[in-house]
């Protein structure tokens, strides 16, 4: 509760009067001090009572169109605040937009000066820069009377609806290959989109503007987009490798993976055999949806685990076949008479028969063993331990499945590229 200027003046006068009364032993000065402070106190109690009356009658109706959108897209918000304002009060009503969503048009605040029942309508536009589930901050009402002002911050479920679902922008970078990726890799960047047009449909919010067919649009007077037929005849397995929320992975990398995965599943779910999605967090299988045609289910699976916690870890996990290869290689060098390779070979010989596949290896093997899967597409941040990527790559190579991986631009390094090649990934794509 903030005192107005006149209240501050009255309080100062009361304090001065009190000092005079104390120093001069003056009864009238004490009376004046008591009167002025009493005036302020009574007004404060009455103001709080009126504010309580206002607070109990506030109701908010808010609509946001669209509420599922792409990062950076505009949102039109209409917020109606119903309140009963007592006489002698003035109210400033402001709607609090979600953080990271600056105002682009209109005003999110207004003032009410007349007493009575009001339905204040605020219409404004936002641009969602942040991504994820964004909730509105609520409604702020500042009440003023001649002596005090008070900010009533209405928060909580009823005042923060609706929640905006903002998908991150994480498309594969178009254009020619460059830098460490090379020209050959750039050809595969449009892997999840075919080149033949399968059908046309009406434009929906969130569609890539580049897919708009301008000829049809001009002919019919409404927006049409092209649906591509890519990957027909194949049923790729898409693996979204989400980073561990307990690790300090940059949010931009996570957003790039989720955004690219959302892009991919939206296109793949329209294919004849639907989309096979595997959501993992390191060697932890979070969700597996084989041949799923519902984009809502696929998107929900990605959003539900947008910040998972990695329960199991497999640092430097060794595949039995790789260990056997190491053992044989050590056998070839044993003739040198060096004692260490022989000792190491003995160690390998001892533990290789007892090696059991990890649960994640079994899960990968089963997912890749389904009929018709001819390609494996992994989207990963490339952050932290990558043993699970090695398991995925080796399992794919063992079954003759073409393995490709998408990594955010900022996470790619020559060392990581060399390791990915060793694990059996034929193409490394860049996510921007």
């Amino acid at each position: 509760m903030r005192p107005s200027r006149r209240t501050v003046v009255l309080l100062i006068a009361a304090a001065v009067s009190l000092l005079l009364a104390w120093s001069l032993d003056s009864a009238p000065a004490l009376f004046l001090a008591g009167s002025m402070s009493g005036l302020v106190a009574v007004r404060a109690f009455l103001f709080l009572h009126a504010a309580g009356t206002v607070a109990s009658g506030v109701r908010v109706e808010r609509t946001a169109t669209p509420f599922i959108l792409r990062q950076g897209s505009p949102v039109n918000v209409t917020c109606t605040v119903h309140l009963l304002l007592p006489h002698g009060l003035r109210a400033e009503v402001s709607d609090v937009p979600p953080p990271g969503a600056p105002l682009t048009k209109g005003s999110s605040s207004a003032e009410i000066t007349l007493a009575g029942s009001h339905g204040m309508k605020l219409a404004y536009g936002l641009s969602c820069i942040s991504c994820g589930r964004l909730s509105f901050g609520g409604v702020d009402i500042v009440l003023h009377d001649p002596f005090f002002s008070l900010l009533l911050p209405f928060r909580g479920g009823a005042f923060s609806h609706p929640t905006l679902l903002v998908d991150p922008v994480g498309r594969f970078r178009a254009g020619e290959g460059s830098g460490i990726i090379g020209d050959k890799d750039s050809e595969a960047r449009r892997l999840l989109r075919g080149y033949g047009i399968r059908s046309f449909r009406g434009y929906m919010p969130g569609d890539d503007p580049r897919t708009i067919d301008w000829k049809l649009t001009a002919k019919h007077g409404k927006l049409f987009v092209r649906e591509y037929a890519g990957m027909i005849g194949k049923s790729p397995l898409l693996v979204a490798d989400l980073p561990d929320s307990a690790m300090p992975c940059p949010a931009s990398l996570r957003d790039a993976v989720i955004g690219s995965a959302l892009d991919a599943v939206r296109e793949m779910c329209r294919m004849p055999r639907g989309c096979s999605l595997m959501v993992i967090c390191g060697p932890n299988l979070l969700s597996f949806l084989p041949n799923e045609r519902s984009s809502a289910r696929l998107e929900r699976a990605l959003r539900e685990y947008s910040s998972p916690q990695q329960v199991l870890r497999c640092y430097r996990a060794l595949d039995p076949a790789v260990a056997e290869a190491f053992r044989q290689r050590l056998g070839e060098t044993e003739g040198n008479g060096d004692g260490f390779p022989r000792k190491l070979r003995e160690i390998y010989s001892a533990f290789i028969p007892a090696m059991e596949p990890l649960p994640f290896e079994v899960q990968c093997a089963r997912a890749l063993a389904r009929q018709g899967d001819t390609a494996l597409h992994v989207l990963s941040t490339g952050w932290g331990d990558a043993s699970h990527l090695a398991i995925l790559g080796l399992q794919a190579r063992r079954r003759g499945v073409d393995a490709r991986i998408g990594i955010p631009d900022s996470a790619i390094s020559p060392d990581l590229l060399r390791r990915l090649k060793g694990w059996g990934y034929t193409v490394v794509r860049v996510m921007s």
Partner: protein
Amino acid sequence: MKPGMTMVMAVLAISLVAAGALFGTPLFPVALVAGALLAGSGLVVVFFHPEETALFLFAQPPVFLSWYASPLLAVALEALITIAFLVSAGDTGVRRGVVSAILLVSVSGLFALFIAGHRHILLPLVLLLVVCVIVMLALLGTASHLIHRVTGGLHEAPGRQ
């Protein structure tokens, strides 16, 4: 009517009544001169920079002097200037204005009676300070309860989940 004229008229009336009540006492010339000066200053304020709070404070010296004529008269004059202040602040015809005026007259009357019954002001002053602290705590508690009610007990920042 020019804004603040009600207050000036109240200041003038209070000055006249206070001076009249002190007629025949050594304080009469002081009350007369103070009343004239404050009423004149009030007119200057109204014509050049209308400010109700300043005019309210201008009325306090005559009220102060009227205490020596009669504490009840001081209570009545203080009530008069307070009501004029509330009317000038825009609380005319508002129930809160009437309630606050009645409450103030009652409380200040009781307080004046309490002070007048003591030879020294030490006890009333201590009592006033104690009451002020209690009232301040009660106000903070009420405001805190109100804020907690409207926030629904949520204190974390909204946003990305």
